[in-house]
């Protein structure tokens, strides 16, 4: 690795920035092919019903209608996780949410396809809709999904790492709190779109707004019963993803099948309302946390329970459920930890991964609970956190490996920058500060389907013109993943990254990268790119050393040339170096790949949570609450993020600011609500999100302690900085008006109700009052590392069978 960095760390333009500002980026809906047809979907108007009959003959005979596709033509199910292949492309005998696709029509234009959809009638037999967590936990003999574990309980999880009950019994202080994190959605500006063509040679090509072309590739092969080698999936640059384009979707498969049936290219572009029905957004989560501490502030143990309202299908939900318990242990040392989680099926659009995937909800509860604990112990909440920090290069109770942890510096920096010590509990009534922290993965340790191949691959082609082309299966969703590849290859080969050609997200042309999710892309594609570029540099250096008669280890690559570090006049330009190498070795191409290190967690279910390394964030929010109206005005947000090293600080800050914005949107206003089985706000006007008028000042502080496993030391930034926002906001509201809001979004009504309760002598709190009884499975017992465990499950102590 070069000693002096020329590209890494520079606030360079993105490689695709000029195209984006010129309006020249080709998003999925911008793909136009000759002789193209347009498709539309008929979607369910019922939250839960049996389909008795579909009458489509009036549509079939319409002028301009080319094909009508019914669910029975695609009987094979699909789904992102191997354990929940529960979706049909088009519903066959039952619909499970309003908006579920039932029929697809291809016609000469969109208007005709829309008319045709209106002429199709579906006869339903309504079933009782299950629309809430209390509904979902109730026993039923006609569950939404027959494969659910019990009734509408999709999946339960139970782990115990160390004897939590006895650990809690040794506490001086025990807190029991219930929290609710409302569901919300990604709301990318780009609506989903896809174009398919079935070529005369029997190859199928699909362009789509997807974050995960590899998984779409697999789903198409499965459902269409075609060899994957005859299917090409091209992920167009996404007009925003945030997790909402990470599943294979019905519209992608339907448009592919319609292209096969008609022999013509077919496009589908969803309306905004349809995007709300695709959803896969944040799970609403009800949580109960029991936290124990000693008088001196040290944490003794934690028992955390979650119930997720999953919507009608599996999606990523089993993983989401594990994630509501996986990362509680990564910030503060928890000697004994018990986690019980359950996901329910309900008659709503399926929930899935949204920025932070399953971790913002438990982080919300935990960071508020620590604030409460600090107050009861009479200590500063910053000090309480600092005192309990996880150590670098250590294992957590649930066997996650923490490498670098910049959280101490994050907390210290935001405390200092915000003037915390002169403000906390010292500001006048109505004004307050709140602190919270967070932690997120830098890539999931395991792939979604079991295999031991690399999770990311990069190929380099070095042309004798001096052009370097980087091929990688990653997908740029706006975060800048194409640019990261160019910066890293440019750094190592000493060439201008803006002149590197990057080809990504194409299953025919590029080696597999699993996709833009779990904040994995910079670390995994970056490490693969480093390997490929270093291999190329070896070849170049061999050839240049021979030409210049200079020892190889004296060669430096920078400024588009390779030169002798002791006599820079001895040099060749980059194109010449490639020509020399090509003459010596033949056509120059190299590959690199990356697979995360094996996890220390060997127990079943321990595959969710491990990551090559973790990012950390801390934030202080200062705000004003008007006690008359309950309206919150945010004064300023200070956020420090442990990035390891910024490959491009401008893009890092962009991700931090975007995460702060999105986290505060969730905290203040965004919510996905239903009434009588119908989505209440499936439009951008009704679903409230922050506008330019709602924005506040953000001071971002980057903590750069290069991590040994990150490319040039980099860790993630796309998701982690969202996590502290909702709890920091609630903690600040408490500091301002001394009422606890234990659920989000924190609306003015909730603040006023809590203030009113307090003024009547009741508890000054708004939040869930109870946690339903659920039959979680018996816990799997795993000894923590400090109790002599080996990362595997061990014999179950008798008391765990009775529960706590």
């Amino acid at each position, binding site marked *: 690795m070069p000693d002096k960095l020329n590209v890494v760390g520079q*606030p360079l*333009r*993105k490689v*695709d*920035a*000029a*195209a*984006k*500002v*010129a*309006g*020249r*980026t*080709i*998003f999925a*809906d*911008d793909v*136009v092919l000759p002789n193209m047809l347009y498709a539309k979907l008929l979607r369910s108007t019922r939250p839960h019903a049996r389909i008795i009959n579909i009458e489509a003959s009036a549509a079939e005979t319409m*002028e301009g209608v080319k094909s009508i596709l019914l669910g029975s033509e695609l009987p094979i199910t699909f789904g992102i996780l191997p354990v929940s292949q529960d979706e049909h492309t088009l519903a066959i005998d039952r619909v499970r949410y309003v908006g579920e696709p039932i029929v697809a029509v291809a016609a000469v234009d969109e*208007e005709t396809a829309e008319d045709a959809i209106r002429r199709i009638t579906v006869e339903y037999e309504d079933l009782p809709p299950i629309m809430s967590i209390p509904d979902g936990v109730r026993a039923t003999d006609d569950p939404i999904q027959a494969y659910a574990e019990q009734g509408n309980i999709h999946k339960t999880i139970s782990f115990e790492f160390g004897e939590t009950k006895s650990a809690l019994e040794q506490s001086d202080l025990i807190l029991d709190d219930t929290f609710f994190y409302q569901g919300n959605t*990604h*709301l*990318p*500006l*780009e*609506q989903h779109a896809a174009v398919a063509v079935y070529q005369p040679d029997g190859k199928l090509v699909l362009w789509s707004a997807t974050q995960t072309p590899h998984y779409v590739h697999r789903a198409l092969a499965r459902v269409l019963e075609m060899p994957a080698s005859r299917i090409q999936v091209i992920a167009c*640059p*996404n*007009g*925003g*993803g*945030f997790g909402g384009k990470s599943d294979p979707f019905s519209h992608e498969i339907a448009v592919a099948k319609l292209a096969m049936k008609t022999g013509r290219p077919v496009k589908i572009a969803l*309306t*905004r309302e349809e995007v709300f029905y695709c959803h896969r957004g944040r799970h609403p989560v009800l949580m109960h946390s029991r936290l124990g501490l000693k008088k001196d502030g040290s944490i003794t143990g934690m028992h955390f329970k979650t119930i997720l309202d999953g919507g009608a299908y599996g999606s990523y939900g089993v993983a989401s459920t594990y994630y509501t318990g996986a990362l509680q242990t990564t910030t503060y040392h928890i000697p004994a930890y018990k986690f019980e989680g359950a996901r329910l099926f309900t008659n709503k659009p399926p929930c899935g991964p949204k920025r932070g995937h399953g971790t913002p909800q438990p982080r919300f509860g935990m960071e508020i609970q620590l604030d409460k604990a600090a107050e009861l112990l009479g200590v500063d909440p910053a000090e309480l956190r600092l005192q309990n920090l996880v150590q670098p290069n250590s294992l957590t109770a649930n066997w996650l490996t923490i490498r670098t942890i910049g959280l101490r510096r994050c907390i210290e920096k935001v405390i200092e920058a915000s003037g915390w010590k002169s403000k906390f509990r010292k500001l006048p009534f109505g004004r307050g500060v709140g602190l919270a922290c967070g932690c997120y993965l830098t890539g999931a340790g395991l792939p979604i389907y079991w295999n031991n191949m690399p999770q990311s691959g990069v190929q380099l082609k070095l042309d004798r013109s001096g052009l370097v082309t980087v091929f990688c299966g990653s997908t740029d*969703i*706006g*975060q*800048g993943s194409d640019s990261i590849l160019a910066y890293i290859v440019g750094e190592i080969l000493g060439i201008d990254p803006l002149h590197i050609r990057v080809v990504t997200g194409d299953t025919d042309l590029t080696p597999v990268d699993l996709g833009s999710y779990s904040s994995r892309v910079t670390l995994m594609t970056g490490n693969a790119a480093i390997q490929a570029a270093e291999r190329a540099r070896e070849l170049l250096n061999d050839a240049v050393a021979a030409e210049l008669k200079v020892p190889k280890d004296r060669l430096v690559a920078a400024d588009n040339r390779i030169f002798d570090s002791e006599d820079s006049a001895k040099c060749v330009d980059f194109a010449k170096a490639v020509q020399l190498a090509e003459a010596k070795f033949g056509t120059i191409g190299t590959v690199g790949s990356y697979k995360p290190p094996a996890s220390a967690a060997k127990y079943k279910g321990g595959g969710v949570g491990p990551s090559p390394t973790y990012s950390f964030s801390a934030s202080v929010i200062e705000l004003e609450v008007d006690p008359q109206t309950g309206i919150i005005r945010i004064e300023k947000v200070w956020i420090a993020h442990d990035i390891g090293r910024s490959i491009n600080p*401008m*893009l890092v*800050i*962009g991700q931090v*600011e*975007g995460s*702060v*914005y*999105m986290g505060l949107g969730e905290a203040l206003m965004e919510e996905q609500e239903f009434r009588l089985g119908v989505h209440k706000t499936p*439009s*951008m*006007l009704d679903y409230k*999100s922050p*506008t*330019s*008028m709602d*924005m506040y000042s*953000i001071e971002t502080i980057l903590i750069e302690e290069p991590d040994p496993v990150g490319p040039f030391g980099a860790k993630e930034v796309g998701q982690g900085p969202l996590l502290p926002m909702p709890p920091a906001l609630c903690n600040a509201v408490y500091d301002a008006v001394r009422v606890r809001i234990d659920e989000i979004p924190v609306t003015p009504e909730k603040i006023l109700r809590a203030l009113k309760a307090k003024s009547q002598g009741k508890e000054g709190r708004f939040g869930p009052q109870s946690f339903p009884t659920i039959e979680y499975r018996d816990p799997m017992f795993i000894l923590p590392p400090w109790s002599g465990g080996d990362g595997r499950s061990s014999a179950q102590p008798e008391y765990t069978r009775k529960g706590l």
Partner: protein
Amino acid sequence: MRSKELHRLMVNRELREVAAYSSRTLLEVLREDLGLPGTKHGCEVGECGTCTVLLDGQPALSCLLLPADLEGQHITTVEGMANGAELHPLQSAFADLGAAQCGYCTPGILMVAKALLEENPEPTRAQIEEALGGNLCRCTGYLKIFEAIELAAKTLHQEEHAHAG
């Protein structure tokens, strides 16, 4: 059977004739009939600002306009912003400061920003925030966009100064 109507539209200083269904919005005609897909859509019902174009220099939502009403007016889209291959200072500032993450809301926001700077060459932060009040962006948290508009205002001011001098 639906019938098409002939429109004569002045788009990016070019007179374009196009036959389109009378129900088609300006957004659809630009994207699908005139081969100008730079204008994007996020809702198609006037809620997100993504499809903003300029009508005689004023921002307008192309998803709510019918081409039949627009003959004789000058329509500017993002494709008409650059001077040949040279980006407009707003476009350069957006690229240089990372104000376009996914880049999908960018064309609409550029249009609003262009109209703003033409009317008010030195806007305050509050005026920028207000001008962009109808344009949603989900990636950036808006701050980089504000900064890019401020940078472009400075660049334009300097350019004008250079011309005057």
